[in-house]
């Protein structure tokens, strides 16, 4: 192990540095969850105000596509977890390939999401004052689609950020940067990706199922 080279000057040893990195990442993920919490609160309030409209509006979304996307994203979490596993055992190339698979799943997720959005926009299922879907008059409908676009939009941005992070880590994997016992970036990137996945796991039932 040549891990000593990775220790920054202000840490006494690698273990402490990794502990710090992990703690920092957990705190950062907390802030990310709270960022979404604002939107979840708004969703809860408006669902309480317009229960029927929200139930009706959610049926206008394609549950099958949402389900496929959920499966895709959960699978991508598995590949990320496997990538970390292999990186930790010194198989940087395998880890890199698994990260590429994750990126492919993420791209598939975005493509499916893109189809859904195109369909919604085409139908006039749009936020707020842009809502022009003809057969829907309940007041909460436009509000549902406001929240739908804001929530999936913010989640989509997180998917893109996560992809960028994982892409950088994948390149580093192929370069063999993590073959020597220092795998913290893979771990942190994986944690971030799991968060992206976790948020979707909450969005999926809220928007598509109930």
């Amino acid at each position, binding site marked *: 192990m040549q891990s000593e080279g990775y220790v920054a*000057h202000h840490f006494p040893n690698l273990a402490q540095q990794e502990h710090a990195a992990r703690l920092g990442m957990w705190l950062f993920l907390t802030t990310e969850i709270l960022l979404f919490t604002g939107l979840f609160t708004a969703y809860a309030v408006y669902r309480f105000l317009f229960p029927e409209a929200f139930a009706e509006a959610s049926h206008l979304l394609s549950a099958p596509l949402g389900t496929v996307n959920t499966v895709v994203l959960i699978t991508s979490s598995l590949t990320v977890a496997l990538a970390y596993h292999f990186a930790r055992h010194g198989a940087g190339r395998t880890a890199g390939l698994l990260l590429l698979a994750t990126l492919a799943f993420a791209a598939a997720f975005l493509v499916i999401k893109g189809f859904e959005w195109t369909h919604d926009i085409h139908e006039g299922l749009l936020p707020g004052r842009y809502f022009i879907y003809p057969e829907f008059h309940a007041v909460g409908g436009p509000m549902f689609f406001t929240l739908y676009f*804001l929530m999936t939009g913010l989640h989509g941005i997180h998917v893109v950020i996560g992809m960028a992070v994982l892409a950088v880590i994948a390149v580093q994997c192929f370069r063999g940067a993590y073959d020597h016992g220092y795998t913290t970036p893979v771990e942190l990137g994986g944690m971030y990706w799991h968060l992206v996945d976790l948020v979707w796991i909450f969005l999926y039932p809220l928007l598509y199922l109930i």
Partner: protein
Amino acid sequence: MSQSLASTPPPPGELVPAYNTRNYLNAESGILSWLLTRDHKRIGIMYLVATTVSFFLGGVFAMLIRIELLTPGPTIMSAMTYNRMFTLHGVVMIFLFMIPAIPGAFGNFFIPIMVGAKDVAFPKLNLLSFYLYLLGAAIALYGMIHGGADTGWTFYTPYSTTTVTKVVPILLGAFVLGFSSILTGLNFIVTAHTLRAPGLTWMRMPLFVWSIYATSIIQILATPVLGITLLLVAVEHAFGFGVFDPARGGDPILFQHLFWFYSHPAVYIMVLPGMAVISEVIQTAARQTIFGYRAVAFSSLGIAFVGFFTWGHHLFTSGQSTLDAGIFGVLSMFVGIFTAIKVFNWTATLYKGAVKFTTPFAYVCGFLFFLVFGGLTGIALATVSLDVHWQDTYFIVAHFHFIMVGGTIMAWLAGLHYWWPKLFGRTYSDAWGLVSATFIILGFNATFIPQFLLGNYGMPRRYYSYPERFWALNVASTAGASLLAFGFLIILVYLLISLKHGRLSGPNPWNSRGYEWETLSPPPVENFLENPVFRRAPHDYTADGSGGASGDGPEVKHAV
């Protein structure tokens, strides 16, 4: 137990230099060495400069507001300009000055030193958060130059979503500043957890670190909610999605709940660092360990916790149910208790101490008075039936200026004067310090006590013109504000002079037993010449080293 030292004492016979010539300031030179530095001390100094510039900018807005209010009608500006002025005053003072001032400057500089580390846990992230601060400030400044917003810093919907002014850049600026604040807080928490030097148990951690730690918790938990809320307002203003628009089924009160869920804890983000500074200064000034270390340390966490459950007291008159008002009212009473604990413990610290009246101590006295007065008027406001009259009047304005200016800025000045020799290795004239402290404390009272009375009298806040019966008190307030401004200018002058011509201070001009005074002034790049080991609690002024702050010293004497 050895007499103490955090770092290894200099070998006998070798003199401690009056000025450490190989310090963080001159370790590298050139502008790039500052802009790309990862040294927490340099980042702290850059925060100090940036927040001070913001403070003077916000101060100029404040003076313009006060001049406009000299007469009941229009004085020097139009109503639109006035509305922008008070918005910008609020935004600049809160987001660019109050929130980052103490954590950004003193927190960055002293937390690693106080825990005996060479740097914060994530130095690159630290630099990033400084640049996010600059970016947020730049976006907000862009908005200000291109018209500014006229919504008040509270951005209440639906006014903020329908106004024609440039509210979006200000909102985005505040959003970015929020991220800067989150990253700083994250860094401090991880630093306190992972980089404490050997011997530094949690119960020996300096109270400054405890208090900033509590602040950081609030920053991490509350700021993201503000971020998303401000983004929603920006989106709503730009596209009209209707999230807070009653005409589309939206609820404007939801905004107030989300906003105050952050912004009430944000009050503690602003005042807890002030309390952090006071805890350090008062122990040095009194040469006495804090009275009740655990009480003071844990009350910071108490404030951080209970502060999250009181936001509803900003909505007593907005049509909230009486039950909600009652719950939020009673919870607000409890948050006041933690502050009371601190105040009593600080005051009791002077008992059987050896007190010296210096400039920092003058600000501590001012702080105690203002914090108690401002804090109790806060409790008075949470007494629901009284709030009905005071809500949105000058009473509120005076109350939070007592906490913010009278509390946090007094503490900031106390910290600035207390740590100045450590920052730059030179001292200022204590006489001038006391002169300006007198101006500031008197000017502050003269500015804001009339505003309490104006609030009682019924003058609502954010008024451009007012009935003539409010005239005299407004003139008194403006007169006080000019004293205050004059006091700040004196400080600026003598501190700048001291940078070049000040007497060399030596490592410990106050004879303090705080950890940060163990190292040289200005500190070397890695803070201590050797890795420190803490063998005693901070601020142990007993003759025999028995004054362990947490009571873990050999023997503990009880008060009568």
